[in-house]
């Protein structure tokens, strides 16, 4: 197994995946296991701060992320570590901090001083990577295709990676025309539909803070995916997923059209193609009916 630069891998689930969106956590771990990716959970990780913390106190938000980077380093005996992140929000917070600390010595010094006040040290040896990046670029097409036992031929999937996967840095995918997720879905044998709005924001926290706007944004995406012929959507972010899935009645009412469509984690679709069990993929957690999915083939 390629361990990306020989770094030891640690998995950072993030707060949202612990309970509310645990289907992502469960399916991510199952898929990693099925592909032989070793990733121990980072011990005693803390919240990345998400968009809320940086909107309140930027320096403290860097400290929050830096503690996780320092933990990864410490848990690998002070040498190189790779932090594998499934949530887009966590990914951008942690990765941005990793980059800014590497690029700005004055910031590194200040944050380093704060970490030392809590008995920790960060030497700049942690790399933050999204799980999708690991699966596509490290594991790769051949290994993923080999593992597929039940190609998803009946599925017409709209791939929706979510903003913070490819923006702002555009390192793992094109910031305007993301293709990484579509490629992976193709390897699973799914029909990937052309989904024009796939790089547009789901509204993030607006579904709670300004529901009248959040519903419009989610509605646009769901209708666009349905219009493209999709019978499900694949997401790579817990916030996108719950926005698209949990409010479909209200969203349909708000936009005056039927917006019901299964919205799943891409890891659940991978597991489905790999023939993993319903428990391994936490199908029972789904809020929207999974009509149109070939689940009858499962145990």
């Amino acid at each position: 197994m390629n361990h990306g630069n020989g770094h030891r891998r640690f998995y950072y689930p993030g707060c949202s995946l612990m309970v509310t969106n645990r289907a992502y956590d469960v399916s991510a771990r199952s898929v990693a296991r099925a592909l032989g990716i070793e990733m121990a959970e980072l011990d005693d990780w803390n919240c990345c701060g998400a968009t809320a913390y940086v909107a309140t106190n930027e320096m403290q938000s860097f400290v929050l992320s830096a503690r996780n980077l320092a933990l990864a380093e410490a848990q690998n005996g002070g040498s190189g570590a790779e932090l594998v992140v499934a949530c887009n929000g966590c990914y951008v917070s942690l990765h941005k901090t990793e980059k800014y600390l590497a690029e700005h010595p004055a910031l590194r010094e200040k944050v380093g001083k704060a970490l030392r006040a809590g008995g920790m040290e960060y030497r700049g040896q942690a790399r933050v990577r999204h799980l999708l990046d690991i699966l596509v670029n490290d594991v790769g097409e051949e290994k993923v295709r080999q593992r597929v036992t039940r190609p998803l031929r009946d599925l017409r999937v709209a791939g929706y990676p979510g903003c913070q996967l490819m923006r702002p840095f555009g390192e793992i995918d094109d910031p305007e025309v993301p293709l990484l997720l579509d490629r992976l879905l193709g390897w699973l044998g799914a029909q990937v539909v052309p989904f024009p709005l796939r790089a547009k924001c789901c509204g993030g926290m607006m579904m709670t803070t300004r529901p009248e706007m959040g519903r419009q944004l989610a509605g646009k995406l769901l209708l666009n995916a349905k219009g493209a012929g999709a019978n499900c959507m694949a997401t790579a972010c817990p916030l996108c997923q719950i926005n698209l899935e949990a409010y479909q009645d209200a969203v349909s009412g708000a936009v005056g059209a039927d917006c019901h469509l299964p919205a799943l984690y891409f890891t659940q679709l991978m597991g489905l193609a790999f023939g993993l069990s319903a428990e391994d993929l936490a199908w029972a957690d789904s809020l929207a009916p999974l009509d149109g999915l070939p689940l009858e083939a499962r145990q």
Partner: protein
Amino acid sequence: MEYSPREIVAALRAEMLHRVLESNTVWLCTSCYSCTVRCPAGIPFTDVMYELKRLEAQKGLRSEKDPAAVMAKVLVESVNRHGRNHEPEVIRKFYWRTKPSRIFGQMRLAWRLMRRGRLAFLSHDIRGLPDLQKMLAAIEEDGAA
């Protein structure tokens, strides 16, 4: 959104930034980073929006606190208290401080989540919480110095 990124920069130059801070613009930003990747001058504009959010939170120029500003505040409180974001606590405090009656509209979703074991009743405090709090206090003092 009342002001576009170009208008925000123009307002800054004209020393009329207060108009932007009084508008609905700043807290409508969801951090999708589209402005950052499109800016022809390479300005990480989402970072600018974050700075404006911090300014607005400090100055409190809006007549009523923006719901997104309240959300940011309650999340920070939860992270400071537990080292993690305890979602049910954040949501409960958010509605309590904005429109408490709206929580009734969330009951059906809460019930559906609970039936699937997706509502966390207990919060989890990280073991390193005292150390994390020291770190957060240290950088705050450092910034003030």
